[in-house]
């Protein structure tokens, strides 16, 4: 069932699948990046442990700048560092950066074309008990709309590490979205990763629907596919870790193959991955689509899984949307 060329974690569907926080992968990746490239610098707004930038800060104290609780300053100082040749990673919670400092990111990083990497940790409703004030569910939309901005949402810790290393090299303003809690390890060190290239995790000649997911929802999409198979419904599952630039070649190919699409993301239904896919397909090869995401509401306190289930992001919701979209195929 799993695409062998992806070299995924073979224990993926085990009950005791290994779990790690996606942010942990960023911490490891940034420390590696610091070793490989001495132009990499880190900036943090009083959240170095939470964002996992502390590993980099300890390894390279000269190249770490503690900005304090000041997210506007965080990204604008990063812009200045980039303009003199540094490769800055600026980390905070997604709710505050890019939540609070959008105009600074627009003007001093994107409009100004400086290759700053905005790292938004604790993104999505899956942040859990902190509640609605801390659950960034609009950040993909905010960053995706900015010309030049690259938007990356890793699906697991391993992918977050690879994404971090890739962003050191991409010479573009970029947004890296990280989730707080432990989530299943889907990929391995052998799995392919290239910015802007989606990965087909499950494929089938008989696939009736393509499920496109990102971030923590990739695992739930895979679980839904597994359940659907037992019901005789075959689907293709794609991990679109780079929402911008979107892998339009792959999306178009799969739209033509399966003629129906379900998108799944821990983000508002509006403006995120689903919108990106829909905007592209409506102009090229329109097929019935179901978009799974938050339905124009804020979250609340609760356990991550409990919240995802309550707000329409359950495995059952993906299954239901898949069945629904099949009925809409002409």
């Amino acid at each position, binding site marked *: 069932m799993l695409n062998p060329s992806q070299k995924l974690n073979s224990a993926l569907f085990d009950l005791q699948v290994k779990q790690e926080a996606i942010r942990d992968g960023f911490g490891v990746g940034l420390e590696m990046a610091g070793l490989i490239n001495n132009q990499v*610098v880190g900036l943090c707004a009083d959240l170095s442990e939470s964002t996992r930038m502390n590993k980099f800060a300890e390894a390279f104290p*000269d*190249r770490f*700048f503690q*900005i*304090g609780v*000041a997210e*506007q*300053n965080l990204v*604008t*100082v*990063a*812009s*200045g*560092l*980039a*303009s*003199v*040749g*540094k490769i*800055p990673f600026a980390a905070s919670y997604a709710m505050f950066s890019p939540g609070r400092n959008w*105009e*600074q990111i627009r*003007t*001093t990083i994107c*409009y*100004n*074309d400086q290759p700053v990497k905005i790292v938004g940790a604790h993104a999505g409703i899956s942040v859990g008990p902190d509640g609605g004030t801390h659950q960034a569910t609009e950040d993909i939309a905010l960053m995706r709309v900015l010309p030049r901005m690259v938007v990356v949402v890793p699906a697991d810790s391993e992918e977050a590490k690879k994404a971090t290393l890739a962003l050191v090299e991409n010479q573009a303003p970029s947004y890296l979205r990280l989730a707080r809690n432990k989530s299943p390890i889907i990929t391995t060190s052998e799995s392919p990763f290239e910015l802007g290239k989606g990965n087909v995790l499950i494929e089938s000649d008989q696939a009736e629907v393509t499920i496109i997911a990102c971030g923590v929802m990739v695992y739930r999409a895979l679980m839904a596919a597994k359940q659907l198979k037992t019901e005789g419904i075959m689907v293709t599952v794609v991990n679109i870790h780079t929402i911008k630039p979107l892998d339009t070649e792959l999306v178009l190919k799969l739209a033509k193959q399966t003629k129906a699409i379900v998108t799944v993301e821990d983000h508002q239904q509006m403006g995120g991955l689903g919108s990106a896919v829909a905007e592209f397909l409506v102009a090229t090869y329109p097929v019935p689509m179901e978009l799974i995401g938050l339905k124009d509401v804020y979250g609340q306190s609760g356990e991550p899984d409990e919240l995802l289930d309550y707000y329409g992001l359950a495995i059952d919701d993906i299954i239901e949307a898949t069945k629904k979209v099949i009925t809409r195929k002409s």
Partner: protein
Amino acid sequence: MKPYNDDIKLDLETKANLVRQLVIESLIEAGSGHTAGPLGMADIFVTLYFHILNHRPSETTWALRDRLVLSNGHICPVLYATMALAGYFPISELKTLRRFGSRLQGHPHREWLPGLETSSGPLGSGLSQAIGMALGFRLDLGENTERYVYALLSDGELEEGNTWEAVLLAGKERLSNLIAVIDRNGIQIDGFTKDVMPLEPLSDKFESFNWHVIEIDGHNFDDIIDAFGQAQAVFGRPVVIIAHTIPGKGIPEFERDYTWHGKPPNLKEGKQALEKLRSLQGRIKNDYL
């Protein structure tokens, strides 16, 4: 520091007068834009570009250059006029200000005009960018680096929270290679800064954030030159030069009138202004002015 004497002072004064004329001419052509701030900052811009900055107008990417960040991008007519006079681009191009396709965007766009260090307009973010540059230089060159970053700010933009986040950080980092200049002209769009949002005691504010403060008359070249010399000499602290300027300086009809903050002179007003500048306020009688 370069040598400074009466001849150089006269040369700077002459250039500042010329820059003010170029500002007026470009604003007449543009039909929109800001007048008071550019006229008020002409003396400081001329001093920076012709006496202070380590730069090469013919080699804008020269790695060893100082950096100048204009935070309040709306006073760009004076930046453009000074850069043109310094040889960055032809003076004739000033007449394209704010036109479609022009390199002289309504607010500065780094990518469009070589020689600009950043794009700016939205207020309050320039000091932070200058701090980033200064930190980068310190990282590469050490604490004694003499590669300076000059951040030019308006007084109105001190109302932005982002500015004070930056002021805090520069004090914490003891950034000796950062020199900020505040255009303390006392006006902003809606009126006088003292009415819109009082800033005094401004000098005390910066001192309490661990900055070295120098207050000067922003139209006195001796003062300006001396302040930059002092600023470069201070070690272990960022320096702010609070330059008291007269908005609209050089055109008595425009001076200290906040309504000239965000509008250009019309053709008639512009011609009268040019006459004032070209005749040194009527001291030179000449039919061809």
